[in-house]
């Protein structure tokens, strides 16, 4: 069976994503056939990404862990309903985003940060160097302040705008994938993205180059 023909609904952005989706579908079919242990492979593969998207929406690591676990449990319960109309990755993201949005709506007033440490490996080091003027003494403090300001600005965004900018800028989803995850049009995604960026630029102006 040509698995790529199954994905008629979602425009999968890259060939890598397509291959990934095909591989996921094989595993999903195994789970649907009764091989429950196969679901563990999906958990290991996607736990960081699911945790990441939830964490960037709630800015709290404990809540993010709970919500990510809930996402996997919901996905496991509903795995028989997954027909392959979209990629498993998009489907899982959709569950994660909906679970998180539901949590955020229930706990609108209760927002406090519990942040992960910024990893300075790779290309991030250059950005951090730029931002901290390469002075070791102030570096950690400045980085912590920047992280808090960034998360504060994100939390000031409305939930849909925050979701769009998280999925696009941090998780690297395409417009069409975000539209599918959020059940809206691509135009809406672009519009929300534009507004969210404008807002964040206003909030974080002093950290950005003029």
């Amino acid at each position, binding site marked *: 069976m040509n698995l790529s023909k199954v994905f008629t609904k979602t425009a999968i952005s890259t060939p890598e994503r397509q291959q990934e989706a095909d591989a996921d579908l094989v595993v999903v079919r195994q789970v649907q056939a009764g091989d429950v242990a196969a679901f563990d492979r999906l958990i290991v593969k996607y736990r960081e990404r699911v945790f990441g998207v939830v964490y960037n929406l709630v800015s709290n690591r404990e809540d993010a862990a709970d919500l990510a*676990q*809930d996402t996997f*449990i919901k996905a496991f319960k509903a795995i028989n309903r997954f027909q392959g109309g979209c990629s498993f990755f998009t489907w899982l993201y959709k569950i994660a985003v909906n679970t998180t949005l539901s949590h955020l709506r229930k706990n609108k007033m209760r927002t406090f940060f519990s942040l992960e440490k910024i990893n300075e490996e790779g*290309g*991030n080091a250059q950005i951090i160097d730029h*931002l901290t003027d390469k002075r070791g003494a102030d570096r950690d403090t400045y980085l912590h302040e920047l992280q808090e300001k960034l998360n504060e600005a994100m939390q000031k965004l409305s939930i849909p705008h925050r979701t769009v900018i998280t999925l696009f800028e941090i998780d690297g989803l395409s417009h069409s994938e975000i539209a599918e995850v959020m059940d809206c049009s691509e135009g809406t995604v672009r519009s929300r993205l534009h507004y969210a960026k404008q807002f964040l630029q206003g909030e974080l102006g002093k*950290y950005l180059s003029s």
Partner: protein
Amino acid sequence: MSKPEQNSKVTLEDLLRLKRTEKPAPEFWVNFEQELRQKQLTALVQKRRWWHEVPVLLNRRLYMPAGAAAIVAFTLVTVRYSTPTQMAQLVNTAPQIAAADPAVETLATTVVAGLDLEQSRHDMQTAPVAQAAVPVPVTQVASVDDREASPLPAQSELQSPPARSLIANLARLEQTEPDLANTVIGSRLSSPARVHTAAMSQSELAPVAHAAPSKYRLIARYVDRALSPEPSAPASIRERLARRLGEDLGDEISRIGVVGDRVSLKF
């Protein structure tokens, strides 16, 4: 503390990219998996409520049977309750008719008196004409010799309103079209008493047609129209038609000529 003036070429995308690096330590995932296992077990042990099963059942291609069952149920309910509802409407309007002419007792008042609705529905199904003729003077029907008049049980008080209406209408039909009535219904209804009753009922409908609300006036007119003999054209129209027919016939004959053994036609 902040040094924005020293930063060059830092964009919003760069800042947001920093958030990608906010990742938990590897030991976090050990704890994460343990908690996930516990939650999975809890979810398996938890008894599911019946409303959680509904989407699952619907997903098992039960849409069609469920839809069909809903339609059948709706149809049955509609058939079961539609006729009593119509009767109930008549009950509500009964006082208006009674006010218009106290001598006339409508179907609705009879329903109020508590007659059997099931029997009435059965009668209406067997005699749809009776449904059209709603206001029927029951007092007159009651005067008919029941043993002769009705193929149904003898006491007219126990007969359902549509049955009484049917009897009255049939009596009128017998009066206006005796031959037709004999052919269609048979000799059982050819009673002089019934003919008399029907004539009286028709005459009594006249005041109703004027005094009752327009809805009932229309019904009364409909009853008159349905059971009256064939309408006859006025004398002037009849005369004109006869003259026209004569002219046409004469014209047709004048076009035909017979000479010897030949027949000629003019067009």
